[in-house]
């Protein structure tokens, strides 16, 4: 609150019309800023709900590294050495019934077992099993809690991603970040409280993303994520037009504010005061966003840690570094999407490239957060919308196989604020087809994520169409086994 007041006074003092109009107007405008129902898309400081947090949060912010397409649990985390002996043998129908295979592979004559080509080893003091595809991340397993028993309801990308990000397969619900923005508010004004970024893998064309994945659904749209574009200006229309410099913009804004102020005096509509404030926030965002993306003060060794493409806008490494810088600036929810994990055909080749694009930067982000003490209260989540089949989709050879979509079990990890570090949670069956113990549904993960942010998932609700909705709808159980 004091910070907000100070920010506000900084604006007011710069603005000659305020001094002309006297303190009465200034204090009125502050009230508008705090109480107006019409706030800013992700960028007006707001207090959130008075009842939140429900209890002391373990994490203040989230970095969600969403791996779009469905990474193969069998080749990354879920070590099944005994499958080597079953190479090419049918995955039994008793283990994998036909009725929930996608139509991409359900008509196959055979469902041959495809053991992973990749070596696994135990890493860290925790001895967590990890495949050779992730050598950098192997140095950080003692910070991770790897969940091997994730499961979901959806088998196609669109509904599965929509379920993961909004708690429902059907569009129209708020995304996780929008819920947090609504519930907890933000204490930043010149940066959005919820930022989404995306990058493409180099191995294959990825599955598309949709605006609803960072949308606000039925919540007011000011809670939606601001998508940092991966090409051109990072925020839509953030730069002044060519030929307009900052002093010219300042002149323009001062005259605009003065004219709007005259209108307010005449007509009394507080929305006008809110609008004046929003133009000032826009002006400040125009400074703070380029500053955020200016890596010139980052030491060489830090840049090197993220890899060679860290300076190239739109890469995963670049987005990871932006994520760290956003976390430092107190942004509440930072959502990355990395495309390209949908490996139906030549999986071994593609997953090598995919890991090459991401492993180093993910590890660098964890190291960077830890070094700065940020990992203690930042929750990092890594995972996709579903897993992949134990049987080969298409031809199985000694060096080549494909895997179809698989919702019944897959792996995901969390690290940081409040998470049990150096742990592996849940078990799958011998084929990595079904959850054997301690299943974690998407709704359960959501309940746990909210818990770490200090929120009881059953109590963060919003009334829409006459019903109280929540991120977990009527489902979700807190998974205490994931907590520190």
């Amino acid at each position, binding site marked *: 609150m004091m910070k907000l007041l100070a920010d506000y006074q900084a604006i007011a003092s710069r603005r000659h019309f305020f001094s002309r109009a006297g303190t009465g107007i200034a204090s009125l405008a502050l009230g508008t800023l705090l109480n107006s129902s*019409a*706030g*800013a*898309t992700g*960028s007006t400081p707001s207090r959130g709900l008075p009842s939140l947090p429900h209890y002391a949060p373990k994490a203040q912010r989230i970095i969600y590294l969403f791996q779009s397409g469905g990474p193969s649990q069998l080749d990354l985390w879920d070590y099944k050495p005994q499958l080597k002996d079953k190479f090419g043998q049918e995955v039994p129908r008793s283990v994998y019934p036909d009725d929930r295979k*996608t*139509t*991409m592979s359900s*008509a196959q004559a055979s469902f041959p077992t495809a053991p992973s080509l990749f070596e696994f080893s135990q890493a860290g003091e925790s001895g967590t099993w990890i495949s050779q595809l992730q050598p950098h991340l192997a140095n950080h397993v003692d910070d991770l809690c790897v969940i091997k028993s994730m499961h979901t309801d959806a*088998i*196609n990308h*669109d509904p599965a991603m929509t379920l993961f990000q909004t708690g429902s397969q059907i*569009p*129209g619900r708020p995304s996780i970040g929008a819920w947090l923005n609504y519930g907890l508010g933000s204490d930043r004004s010149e940066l959005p409280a919820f930022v989404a970024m995306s990058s493409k893998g180099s191995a294959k*064309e990825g599955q*598309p*993303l949709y*605006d*609803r994945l960072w949308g606000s659904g039925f919540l*007011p*749209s000011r809670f939606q994520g*601001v998508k940092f574009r991966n090409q*051109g*200006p990072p*925020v*839509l*229309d*953030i730069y*002044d*037009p*060519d*030929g307009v*410099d900052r*002093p*010219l*913009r300042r*002149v*323009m804004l001062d*005259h605009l504010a003065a*004219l*709007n102020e*005259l209108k*307010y005096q*005449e*007509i*009394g*509509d*507080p*929305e*006008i005061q809110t*609008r004046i404030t*929003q133009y000032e926030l*826009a002006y400040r965002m*125009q400074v703070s966003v380029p500053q955020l993306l200016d890596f010139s003060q980052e030491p060489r060794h830090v840049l090197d840690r993220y890899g060679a493409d860290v300076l190239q806008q739109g890469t995963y490494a670049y987005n990871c570094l932006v994520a760290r810088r956003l976390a430092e600036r107190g942004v509440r929810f930072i959502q990355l*999407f990395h495309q390209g994990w949908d490996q139906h055909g030549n999986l071994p080749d593609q997953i090598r490239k995919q890991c090459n694009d991401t492993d180093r930067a993910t590890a660098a982000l964890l190291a960077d957060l830890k070094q700065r003490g940020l990992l203690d209260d930042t929750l990092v989540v890594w995972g996709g919308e579903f897993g992949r089949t134990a049987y080969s989709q298409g031809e199985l050879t000694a060096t080549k196989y494909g895997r179809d*979509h698989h919702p019944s079990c897959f792996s995901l990890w969390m690290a940081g604020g409040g998470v049990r570090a150096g742990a592996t949670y849940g078990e799958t069956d011998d084929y990595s087809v079904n959850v054997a113990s301690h299943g974690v549904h998407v709704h359960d993960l959501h309940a746990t994520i909210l818990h770490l942010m200090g929120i009881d998932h059953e*109590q963060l609700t919003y009334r829409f*169409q*006459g*019903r109280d909705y929540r991120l977990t709808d009527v489902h979700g159980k807190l998974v205490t086994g994931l907590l520190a």
Partner: protein
Amino acid sequence: MRQSVNNAAVLLTVCIVSWCCFVPCCSVCAGEVSFARDVLPILADKCFACHGPDANSRQADLRLDLPSIAQRVVEPGLPAESELIARVSHADPEQRMPPPSAKKQVSAADLQVLSDWIEQGAAYATHWSLSQVAAPALPDVSDPSWPLNEIDYFVLARLDREQLKPSQGADKTTLIRRVTLDLTGLPATPAEVDRFVEEDSVDAYEKAIDRLLATSRYGEHMAAPWLDAARYADTDGYQNDRYRYQWAWRDWVILALNDNMPYDKFVIEQLAGDMLPEATLRQQIATGFCRNHRINSEAGSIPEEWHVANVADRVDTFGTVFLGLTIGCARCHDHKYDPITQQEYYELFAFFNNVPEWGVGPNNGNSPPFVELPQSWPNLSAEEDRLITPAALSFQGDGKYQGGVVRPQPGGENTVMVMHEMETPRATFLLQRGQYQLPDKSEPLQPAVPKCLQTNSQSLPTNRLELAQWLTHPSNPLTARVAVNRYWQQFFGVGIVRTTENFGTQGEMPSHPELLDWLASEFVRSGWDVKAIQKKILLSATYRQSSQATVQAHSSDPENRLLARGPRYRLPAFALRDQALYVSGLLIEKFGGPSAKPYMPPKIWSSISNNTYEQDHGDNLYRRSIYTYWRRTIPPPTMMTFNSAEREVCIVRKGRTNTPLQALTLMNNVTFVESARFLAERMMSTNQVPPALQEQQDLPLEAGTSATSDQTLAAQLTLGMRLATGREPSGTELNRLADAYRQFKEKFVAAPESTGKLLAIGEKPRDEALNPIEHAAMTMVASILLNLDETISKE
């Protein structure tokens, strides 16, 4: 509440009649509790989840929505003897209702209402929106000279109750801009303002409304909310979000609105135009409404699953748009709050389940059934304007799973998707938990409408056409109420029922129930004359009020629900862009056809999906926003910044935010900068000093410059202000704008290379005859004008 009723058969029978049998109760007398207004909302919110319509979640066999069962816990006249009160007020949290697990509490005020209600006899009544519309008598008002038509009596009576006074009428300049924006989505030109201000006949305003209702711009503006409700788009909406060709349906809507097609016909043709006797091609194209839902083409999709999703979307849209009911809630279980069972959901589903379609799309192109659109569209010859039987469903390849999916034949750019009935209806079953793979095959369901909506005066529908006719029968309590509420929302910013999408028990009560009913009955009485009911609203003294008010008045009623002033709020997205193009002279007014692809941010599609946006050039950059290409998964971001609907699912009410991203768009977006450039050109083309200014003593003169050049500047600034806001600037404002111009000019003189950059934004070349420094400075002034709160608001 552990007593139990054992006879389940009795329970079921009562359930069927419950919402039709009721004891009328007095709702207006002071101190008396109205069941519908006061009690039902409490019961619905706090109790129905376990003691309401949903049989599966019901506890203790107790229903509080049915008087015959509720009597177990309610003793009329004796609250102290009533178990309901005892349990709701129980001291022990474990005994108290609702239980802790419900996470809901009955407040002391709610308890008082329940107690009073029982004390007064515990009368039940039908939920207000399901009871018949009866034209209410006009109420007495404090000032009979204020009302201009019937609407005003209801509004003033409410203000009288609140001890408030209406505002004075808006001045003529404000009024003509307001009504022009409301009916056409574009502002009044200075010439139109002058004509209206100068004409002092009593019917000048009515004539202006008639003129606006007759322009083709009316349909282009009014179509926008209908397209949102109908989830119209140019792409399929899932995953790769491939292209479809459905713009002929959009054209149909605009033409129908401009022709003032009666609302009942408008509805019937969109729901079942293909089934009308002697159906025309136009009527068949109208049914595209039922095909505008998303269609999944993702490889690996299971056709049965997505076929169910398509039909469910039709049912949900039907419920929201026409009935204002959240029917979709009953897809997986009985509705928790409204009297709609899960079986009734699937009976409604059966009306929309007979389309010869395939659950998965062709992955580019229209999905069957579709018909060929004649080249002459929309000017069809009599011969062309006849229903075409769509080609039968066929499959790509040999119909086997190839590349992961069986796909139907695609319809090309010259086709349009329509409804069609299968000769043998597809069997419909209740889907347990809403799951496509869990049909309850023990009982095939026949098409039927929910019991709570069945009235005596209508024969019950058995197919889609009869459903549409049933819907528009005058005795249907919801259709007219829901429609007029949307019109009201469009003109006042908030509906009489705020929850436009929900007239059920969990929706909000109307702010002016009698007014809503008067409008609804008038609408039906007029033969569903849309323009007439809209004109009635716009002619009211209520609408014509000034929106000027004290800060206190604004803060005590921020949404203006009591209507003590005129409407004032930010323009919707389409109108904002269209207005900028219009006042700058850039707007290209061309009707219909394939959607236009105006400016978008770089790589708008390709940066996150597998398609590339190919921007148009020339005229298509400047067409009205209703014609902008709509890709559902990546809708035009500028429009989304201003709260457009995504068009993924039916939306009848949108938020209205006020954000820094909006400021960035209006200041920096190419469309708005280019508009500022051309508004500046228009301003600079005048040197006519308005007569008012010639007489003015305090011209904004700058020392050391000639009066002539200052007068010219004043004229140019005045023209700009009039184009943007409809009115002339005050002396203070004129001085302010002139100061701004001079400061901008100074800065561009110091950095002349900047002018070329600014003046090159947007594709339309500038008038090279203009001095670039002056043009750039005036462009910045024009940008101020386009960013004024007054410009971007209707007031």
